[in-house]
């Protein structure tokens, strides 16, 4: 971030020292800048055919009949399949949920629908043809007869109104009814408190809109019975496992999943969707490579959406502004099917952060997860924590007003103090470390908070409405400690795996189980390895995103790559170093205490000329001629790092806006982000993550939000109807940081991928509401468009 960036140099340092923490330019960039990088859609295989998927344009309907004969007869069409064909093939055909909750209803989730379609966009038939155009042409020639059913798209209506169930297994459309916290303690706190303030809020659906649409190329080889799939994946190993055990039944050791360049994900490329399984299944049927690429419009109705919460939340307070308790009741839309983390996101990832940065003695949260006739909802950047922090930050605003305090002062008064860490919140998390006030002060200083408040007063007299929004956040990043996650219902581990290998000529290869979609892992991981082993960056190769080259991994989501993936690399590198040290001691004929390791070289204390560089030792390790008694040759280590806790990045963002009450227009005057993600590996990359995160948070606050029409189909289905922010809609960002290392992470890092998205939405909403305080506006739902403001100010009357 700016502080650190000034301290560290930018560019490639020529030796390994000082590499960790400096803004090294990215090794990813050249292929991406020159057009040489291959995304999945750029992959082409000999004899490749093209898949297009016929999708339901109804939200809820029974499939009466599908006539594929005309499509099949078209020239250039290789095959047309329906859901029945997949069932008949005998593959497992089941997309599983990855997180169980008590009482969870888990309906069947097939890769092509058979009995009913439950949301617009659900796949009903597949065409494989010689060209993508031909495949799309043939889609129109498939005749699907539907019997339409009533549908429901809103989570509250789904469980409260008398509507036909999305799944027969859940008559009332309730997938789960989740509770966290101490209800009794909360009752007491509310009964004793001087004030209670409340807010009803809606967090609309977000369409992730990674710029690269999802895609897959599958190649089944009859001879070896091996399946190779290139796909837009944030976690190729998870996809390998789910393709094997969930949908296709091909043994895991005969599937290779490759994630080449991936053009953004933000959560949407974590999941096992039906489409890549259909692509692979078609390839297996035809014995030839098959490619599928989503159009943007398909993406809108099939990429898992984010958020979709309806919440009533309350905060109990004393006269002096002390928070006594918080409670929230949320209806979360899950969509028509359970996507892998669709259950975890609105339950554990949400309710557990409701304490925010504050001492809240009593917390209770209930979440009803509802099936609706909509695109499945799952984790989107900030997943769960964004929704939870939004709730507590909105409550801190209404609470401040209830006790007549300045919102920043009110927040400050309730902050968890540095000496209280590790801090066990009433929402079941143990925060690892934090100095909340330091970051908050820094952010307020950047904007000149006191002066701004004065300016706000003056402008109000002129009939201009300036608003200042302060949002504090803390999040549970670095998914996740396996044991804890398992206790809570996770069906997958939370570790990450890495191999650090010296090659016999002294170069170093790092293999990581995470998968990049723009975060620059190959750069930061090389920086970690350089730091740990004293090897020049140019001698380090980092490999990611191919299950045949990297044996195991969990992938990239939940801000986990630097902390969990980086942790695994650091630990593997340290094991490599200690083996190298044994060899050095042996060959230098010195005892352990006499040998020091400094910037890649082992030398004898006080005799720097008696030394061996670790890269020379690598050569010795593979030569095997002169190793310590009983030592095996080679110099590589595998590490599975399972963190003992989440990491807890935090910070304060401040948005300064001006709202024009006439037009309802909001303009952002200034945006300041102070983030603390622990130790910083590469300040340039961290800043980039913060920038992108802010953009998505502002997008949610002011522009985005998917809407369904009365017929249950998506109204915002194109880029001109759903506003992905463009360059003129966003301000310049001012970033800064503080560094509070995570005490339990091997590198002290906390992760930063999601932080800014979590902070930005509440900061901007708070600012707009603050601007409109003279109009007695307490809260406005996102997206706060000019129309939202205009209506709130009575424009509709």
């Amino acid at each position, binding site marked *: 971030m700016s502080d650190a960036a000034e301290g560290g140099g*930018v560019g490639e340092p020529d030796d390994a020292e000082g590499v960790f923490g400096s803004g090294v*330019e*990215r090794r*990813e*960039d*050249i*292929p*991406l*800048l*020159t*057009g*040489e*990088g*291959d*995304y999945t*859609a*750029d992959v082409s295989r000999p004899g490749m055919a093209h898949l297009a998927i016929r999708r339901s344009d109804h939200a809820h309907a029974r499939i009466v009949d599908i006539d594929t004969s005309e499509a099949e007869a078209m020239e250039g069409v290789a095959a047309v399949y329906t859901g029945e064909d997949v069932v008949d093939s005998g593959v497992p055909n089941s997309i599983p949920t990855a997180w169980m909750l008590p009482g969870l209803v888990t309906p069947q989730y097939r890769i092509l629908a058979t009995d009913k379609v439950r949301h617009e966009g659900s796949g009903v038939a597949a065409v494989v043809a010689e060209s*993508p*155009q031909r495949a799309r042409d043939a889609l129109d020639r498939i005749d699907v007869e539907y019997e339409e059913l009533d549908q429901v798209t809103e989570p509250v209506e789904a469980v409260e109104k008398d509507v036909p169930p999305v799944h027969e297994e859940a008559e009332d459309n309730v997938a789960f009814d989740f509770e966290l916290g101490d209800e009794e303690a909360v009752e007491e706190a509310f009964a004793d408190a001087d004030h209670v303030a409340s807010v009803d809020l809606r967090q609309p659906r977000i369409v992730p*809109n*990674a*710029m*690269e*649409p999802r895609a897959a190329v599958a190649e089944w080889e009859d001879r070896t019975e091996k399946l190779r799939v290139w796909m837009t994946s944030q976690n190729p190993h998870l996809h390998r496992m789910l393709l094997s055990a969930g949908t296709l039944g091909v043994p895991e050791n005969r599937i290779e999943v490759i994630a080449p*360049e*991936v*053009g*953004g994900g*933000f959560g949407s490329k974590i999941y096992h969707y039906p489409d890549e399984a259909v692509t692979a299944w078609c390839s297996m049927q035809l014995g030839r490579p098959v490619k599928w*690429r989503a*159009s*943007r419009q398909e993406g809108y109705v099939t990429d898992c959406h984010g958020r979709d919460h309806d919440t009533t939340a309350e905060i109990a307070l004393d006269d002096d502004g002390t928070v006594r308790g918080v409670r929230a009741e949320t209806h979360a839309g899950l969509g028509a099917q359970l996507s892998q983390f669709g259950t975890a996101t609105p339950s554990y990832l949400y309710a557990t952060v409701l304490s925010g940065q504050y001492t809240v003695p009593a917390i209770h949260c209930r979440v009803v997860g509802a099936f609706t006739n909509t695109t499945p909802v799952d984790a989107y950047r900030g997943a769960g924590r964004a929704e939870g922090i939004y709730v507590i930050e909105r409550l801190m605003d209404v609470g401040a007003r209830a006790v007549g305090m300045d919102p920043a002062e009110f927040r400050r008064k309730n902050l968890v103090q540095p000496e209280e860490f590790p801090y066990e919140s009433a929402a079941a998390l143990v925060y690892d470390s934090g100095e909340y006030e330091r970051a908050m002060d820094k952010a307020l200083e950047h904007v000149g908070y006191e002066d701004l408040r004065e300016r706000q007063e003056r402008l109000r007299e002129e009939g201009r409405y300036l608003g200042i929004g302060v949002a504090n956040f803390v999040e549970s990043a670095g998914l996740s400690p396996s044991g804890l996650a398992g206790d809570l219902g996770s069906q997958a581990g939370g570790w990450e795996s890495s191999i650090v290998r010296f090659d016999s000529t002294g170069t170093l290869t790092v293999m990581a189980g995470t998968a990049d*979609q*723009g*975060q*620059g892992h190959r750069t930061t991981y090389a920086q970690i390895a350089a730091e740990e082993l004293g090897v020049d960056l140019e001698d380090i190769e980092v490999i990611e995103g191919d299950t045949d080259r990297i044996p195991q991994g969990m992938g990239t989501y939940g801000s986990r790559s630097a902390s969990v993936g980086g942790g695994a690399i650091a630990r593997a590198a340290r094991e490599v170093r200690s083996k190298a040290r044994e060899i050095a001691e042996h060959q230098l004929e010195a005892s352990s205490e006499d040998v020091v390791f400094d910037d890649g070289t082992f030398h004898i204390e006080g005799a720097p000329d008696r030394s061996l560089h670790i890269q020379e030792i690598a050569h010795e390790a593979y030569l095997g001629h002169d190793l310590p008694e009983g030592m095996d040759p080679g110099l590589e280590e595998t590490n599975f790092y399972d963190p003992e806790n989440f990491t807890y990045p935090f910070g304060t963002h401040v948005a300064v806006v001006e709202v024009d009450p006439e037009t309802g227009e909001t303009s952002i005057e200034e945006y300041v982000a102070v983030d603390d993600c622990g130790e910083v590996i590469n300040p*340039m*990359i961290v*800043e*980039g993550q913060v*920038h*992108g*995160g*802010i*953009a*998505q948070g502002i997008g949610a606050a002011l522009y985005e939000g998917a809407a369904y029409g009365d017929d249950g189909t998506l109204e915002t289905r*194109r*880029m*001109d109807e759903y506003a*992905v922010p*463009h*360059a*003129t809609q*966003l301000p*310049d*960002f001012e970033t800064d940081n503080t560094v509070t290392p995570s005490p339990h992470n091997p590198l002290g890092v906390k992760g930063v991928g999601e932080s800014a998205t979590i902070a930005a939405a509440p900061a901007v909403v708070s600012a707009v509401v603050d601007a409109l305080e003279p109009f007695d506006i307490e809260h406005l739902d996102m997206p706060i468009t000019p129309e939202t403001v205009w209506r709130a100010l009575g424009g509709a009357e």
Partner: protein
Amino acid sequence: MSEHEITLTVNGEKHELRVEARTLLVEALREELGYTGANVGCETGRCGACTVRVDGDALKSCTRFAVQADGAEIETVEGLSEEGELSGLQASFKRNHGLQCGFCTPGMLLTAGTFLEDAEDPSRAEIREAIEGNLCRCTGYHNIVDAVEQVATDGGGESL
């Protein structure tokens, strides 16, 4: 489907090809000629990922049929760097961390590079306007604006 014989000169190299009347320019470039640098993000003219230069103008290549470009001189991202040397603008994107996933980058480079040819000392607001039609979901644009601004102020010479 009627087919047409057309000529496209791409990054100085002349190609003759047969395309269907409905083949989009971006499809011809990517699928027929193998210039996969231009990306397809929306195929409806909304994202700018497919931007190339056609006879000197930046153009979203999903908004033109290939036959409409018959005889045109086309520049794609593959033609920006010479013998492995990044252009001034490409290097500036790298220095300023103006790209993350890189999917929008080819289009961004072509749009911004074309803008820089005529822009005199552009303000940040003008740069933002110039790239307004190119969506980026990763960077929040700040560093892209930095990258373009730096080339404009340093007089980075031929930006493309």
